[in-house]
C-alpha cells in the first residue's frame, strides 16, 4: 500500500518565479539533496488523489517523484 508523506522542501525561485526544489527533509528528520530535476509537469495523482505539479527528481542517484499540491509537497511511500 502507498500513502502520501508530506515533506519539508527547500526551494530556489528564479526571477521569473520558476521554482526548483533543492533539498527535502523527511519526517524522520533526515535531509536529502536533490541532485537533479528531470521533468516538471502538471499532473493528476491518480493513485493517491488530487491534482498539482509532479517533479521527477534524482536523490542519491535514485529517480523519484515529488508532488506539489495546494502548496504542500509530498512523496508516495510504501507502508504495510
Amino acid at each position, binding site marked *: 500500500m502507498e500513502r502520501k508523506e508530506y515533506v519539508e522542501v527547500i526551494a530556489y525561485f528564479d526571477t521569473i518565479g520558476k521554482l526548483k526544489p533543492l533539498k527535502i527533509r523527511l519526517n524522520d528528520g533526515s535531509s536529502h539533496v536533490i541532485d537533479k530535476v528531470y521533468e516538471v*509537469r*502538471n*499532473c*493528476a*495523482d*491518480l*493513485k*493517491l*488523489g*488530487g*491534482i498539482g505539479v509532479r517533479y521527477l527528481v534524482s536523490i542519491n542517484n535514485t529517480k523519484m517523484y515529488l508532488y506539489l499540491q495546494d502548496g504542500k509537497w509530498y512523496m508516495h511511500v510504501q507502508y504495510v
Partner: protein
Amino acid sequence: MRYILHSDLNNFYASVECLYRPEIRNSAVLVVGDEEKRHGIVLAKNYIAKRFGVQTGDTIWQAKQKCTCPVVCVPADFEKYLKISRVVKNIYKEYTNFVESFGIDEAWLDISKIVNSFEEAERLANEIRVRVINEVGLTVSIGVSFNKVFAKLASDMKKPNAVTVITTNNFKEKVWPLPVRDLLFVGRRTGDKLERYNIKTIGDLANCKSELLNTLLGKNGLMIHKFANGLDNEPVRSIYQVDEIKSIGNSSTLPYDLTKEDEVLAIVSSLADSVVARMRKKNLYASSICLWIKDNTLNSCDHQKTLSVPTNNSKQIIDTCMQIFHETYTWDYPVRAVGVRVSHLSGEPKQYDLFCDPKTLFKDCNMDKVANELKKRYGHNVLYRASTLAKNLQSVKVEDERHQIHPISYIR
C-alpha cells in the same frame, strides 16, 4: 469553414470527488446536497451509480434504494469543482482565445484559426482529451463539428473519454436519425409538440417546412429548424468578451417552512442585501424588482414591480418585495423557498423622484455602503439584520456570485 469543439467533462462532480478520493472509485458515488438544509437530492453520480438507474434529482434515499452495491454519498464542494474547472479551461485557452463556457463542465472552442481540416481538428481534440486525463485526471468527451449545436450533439454521442466528429458530409447520416429531443433547445414541451406533428427525429425537423414550425413554435421554431439543417452560425465567444449583465438575483431554500410574514421579511432582507452588494460592486441600479416564492407543495410563482427611479438601495428593494408579497401571496401553504431578482439595470439615475425625501434616501444609501464595507473587510457574516437573529435564520447562507455555475443562456 469553421471548426468548433465542444468538450464536456464526464460526470464532472462525481469524477472530481473520485479524483481526490481514489479509494471510492469502485463504489457507486453520489454527490448530494445538504440533507439538513433540505437540499437532499443527487446532484451527480458516477458511472457505477448510473448503471443502477440513479438519476440526477433523485432523493438520497431513492438513490440508495436503487443501488445494490456499496454507496458513497459525498457532499458537494463547489469551490473544488470551480477550481478544477478553471484548470481545465486554462488548458483550452492554451489553444485558442475563443473559449466559451457553457456551465461549469462544458465549453466550446473555436479552433478554425489553427486547423484546416476535420482530420486535424480531430487530432487536436484527441490531444486535448489526453492532456485533460494526464494533467487533471478527468475524462472528457469532445465533439468536433462545423457549428456549436452539432459540436454539442457530437460530444453527447460517445461517452466517456471519446472524440466524435460530425462533418458537413456526414451530418445527415449521423445527426438526422437522432431523436428530435437530443437537439439543443428542444425540451420536454417542444418535444411533445413536435411529436404530435409526427416530427420525431432531427431529420424530420430539418425536412419540415419552416412555415409550419413558425406557426407551431414561433421564432424558436425557425431557430431549431436552422439548427437541424446545420445552419447555426452563432460565434464562439472570446475569453475577452464581457457580457452585459441583465439581471442579478439570489434565492434560498430554507431549512424549515415559513409560516409568518416577518420570517419572510427576514429572508427577503438577507437576499436583498446580497443582491445589493453585487449591484454596488458593478455600480448598477435596477428599476425592476422581482420576488419569487415557492410553497411547500413545490409550486412557485414570481411577480415583479417596476420603480419610477432605478435604485440600489436595499431598504427600497426590501419594501418593494414585501409589497409584492402582500399583494400576491395568499398563505394557502407555507413558504419553502424565496428569491429576489433585480433587472432593467442601468447606471446611476440622473433624476431622482420629485417627491422622495433626499435626506432619508442618502441616509439609507450610506448605511448600505457602510454595511457593504464591513462585510467586504471582515466577511459576510460580520453583520446580520436583527430580524434574522430573532427567527434564528442567520444560518441561511446567501451565496454570492462565486457560486454561479448554471449554464448561461445560449442565445444572447
